């Protein structure tokens, strides 16, 4: 149930804007049809189950060849997002990792490094809270929090809704921090230009083997928290080897978001992509 207005979006995601109290927007993702209405200054999209009888006389069963991708709707929306980003020269980057690998900390360090050179905006995905969006908001860049509720990943529709609320500048970077999860977000194209998977030295070095789909579909793999290497049993070389075995095209970058070590290489990767916009 929506804690601002008491409506029940039934699994739909909610967008929130830090610094704009009471402003939220529901994104429906129910199987039924959607309609939009606005009340109390914010708009809703609710799904309805009709369940009424159309009164057909049930004739013979027939088989229809469909041959359609299951995620066609998401994929089409993702392609629409991608076209929108390309037209405006926005580099959209999808950040993925287990909970706590350091996605938000990396963004907090990356944004000041780019400021003055490239405008940045952020979409934060979490099941609950605006904590991550509040951390980004404190840096003074535009940010929207998507609360997925019970949902364990962002989808293209949520990103489309979030991007509408952000005033993206031409030739800018859009960072999309996905829900902390190495399984489900791998399946859902958001329309990003690049996927960055973050793994940290406090996790097992066999993560790429345990979650091969996620690592296979990544463009960059950031190993974070290298400042902790002297204190943990983490074999960075082995981890890199496993990541390359699952995806031999992946770009491997080791950083400590805490100390800033290695962040220059990460910045170089980002700016080389931004310069190609």
């Amino acid at each position: 149930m929506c804690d601002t207005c008491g409506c029940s979006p039934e699994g739909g995601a909610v967008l929130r804007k830090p610094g704009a109290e009471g402003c939220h927007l529901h994104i429906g993702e129910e199987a039924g049809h959607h309609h939009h209405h606005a009340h109390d200054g914010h708009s809703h999209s609710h799904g309805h189950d009709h369940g009424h009888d159309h009164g057909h006389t049930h004739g013979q069963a027939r088989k229809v060849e469909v041959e359609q991708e299951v995620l066609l709707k998401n994929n089409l929306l993702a392609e629409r997002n991608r076209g929108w980003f390309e037209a405006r020269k926005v580099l959209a980057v999808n950040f993925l990792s287990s909970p706590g690998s350091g996605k938000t900390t990396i963004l907090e360090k990356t944004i000041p490094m780019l400021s003055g050179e490239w405008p940045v905006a952020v979409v934060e995905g979490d099941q609950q809270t605006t904590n991550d969006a509040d951390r980004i908001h404190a840096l003074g860049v535009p940010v929207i929090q998507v609360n997925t509720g019970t949902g364990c990943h962002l989808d293209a529709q949520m990103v489309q809704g979030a991007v509408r609320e952000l005033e993206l500048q031409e030739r800018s970077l859009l960072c999309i921090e996905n829900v902390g999860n190495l399984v489900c977000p791998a399946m859902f194209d958001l329309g990003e230009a690049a996927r960055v998977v973050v793994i940290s030295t406090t996790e097992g070095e066999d993560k790429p083997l345990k979650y091969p789909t996620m690592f296979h579909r990544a463009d960059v793999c950031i190993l974070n928290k290298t400042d902790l290497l002297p204190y943990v049993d983490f074999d960075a070389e082995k981890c890199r080897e496993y990541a390359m075995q699952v995806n031999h095209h992946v770009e491997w970058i080791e950083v400590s978001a805490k100390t800033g070590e290695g962040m220059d290489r990460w910045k170089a990767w980002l700016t080389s992509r931004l310069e190609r916009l």
Partner: protein
Amino acid sequence: MHEMSIAMSIVEAVADRARQEGCARVTGIELVVGRLSGVVAESLRFCFDAASRSTPVEGAELSIEERDAAGSCEECGARFPVESYHASCPSCGRFRVRILSGEELAVKSITIE
């Protein structure tokens, strides 16, 4: 669990198609699920019951065809079946495999009335 959103996508796509065909009920669905699609057939089956409740798809029989995956080696060109993305070439041993098939996740057909 993403199988729930996948099951909901199936129900939505299939119900839309049935409507286009002028039919009120879907009684059968044939799905193709590749071994590298990232979807576990059993979890999908489990979620499908919940996702289809009170929709025109409720009660439809779900048949899932699991497809094996294949890859080719970027070094030596060999072609071979693969079990996962962590695959090495059986001829040269290198881990430089291009996936050729096995990532499909599609509705093949529906039975409507």
